[in-house]
């Protein structure tokens, strides 16, 4: 399952916890699954698969083990978005001031 954007991918709290775990240290699949005793291993495995397919986890082989690493790049898209809107609104509110001034400026 490859999602078009990152929002839906991280809407799931388990996935967010997995990423948070992996930002502390790279972990093999087994170790990740052990951290979620209430969730079946196949379910955890599926979350990891979705995260991998969406670029939030990279997998590297080290000997026989396959380690999962968190990849933060796709998340930057979101923080950029908020920053962009903050800039957008500041500009537009300036324009609103200009508009009002032009429309209602005192005559004479």
């Amino acid at each position, binding site marked *: 399952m490859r999602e078009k954007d990152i929002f839906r991918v991280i809407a799931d709290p388990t996935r967010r916890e997995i990423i948070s*775990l992996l930002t502390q240290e790279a972990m093999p699949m087994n170790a990740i699954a052990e951290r979620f005793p209430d969730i079946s291993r196949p379910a955890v495995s599926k979350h990891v698969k979705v995260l991998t397919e969406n670029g939030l986890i990279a997998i590297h082989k080290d000997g026989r083990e396959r380690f999962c690493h968190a990849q933060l790049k796709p998340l930057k898209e979101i923080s950029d978005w908020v920053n962009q809107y903050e800039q957008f609104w500041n500009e537009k509110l300036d324009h609103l001031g200009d508009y009002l001034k032009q429309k209602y400026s005192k005559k004479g």
Partner: protein
Amino acid sequence: MSKAIEISRFYPYSSDKVWAALTDPEALSEWLMPVEDFQLKLHQKFRFKTKPSPGFDGIVHCQIIEVDAPKTLVYHWQGGGMKQPTTVRWQLKSIEDGTVVKLHHSGFIGVDGWIIKKILTFGWRKITRKKLVAFLAK
């Protein structure tokens, strides 16, 4: 896990004048973005259309969800790529020599809120946090 933008501005004009600028399609097209189908009534759907840019098709789908003239106007705001609508809330407050406009744009499902929460929950290694901060600041 959501982040909001809040901006307050003072304009030396009455709230009726500011309200008109926020609710007149011609005015909106002039200072905000060209707008289609805007009508000041509850549940009205309308669109802002502007130049497309990378990652944005130039269309913002909106729907009015609250109107209380001339004080409050709230609409959903769903730009290209947003899976869920965000919420834009305008609040006007009359003061002696003008109007304070408060803009609140919320509902961005984002990384900032939950990353901070997770930092608190898990106690990230300094190196990771430094890397992360440096990364997000790029």
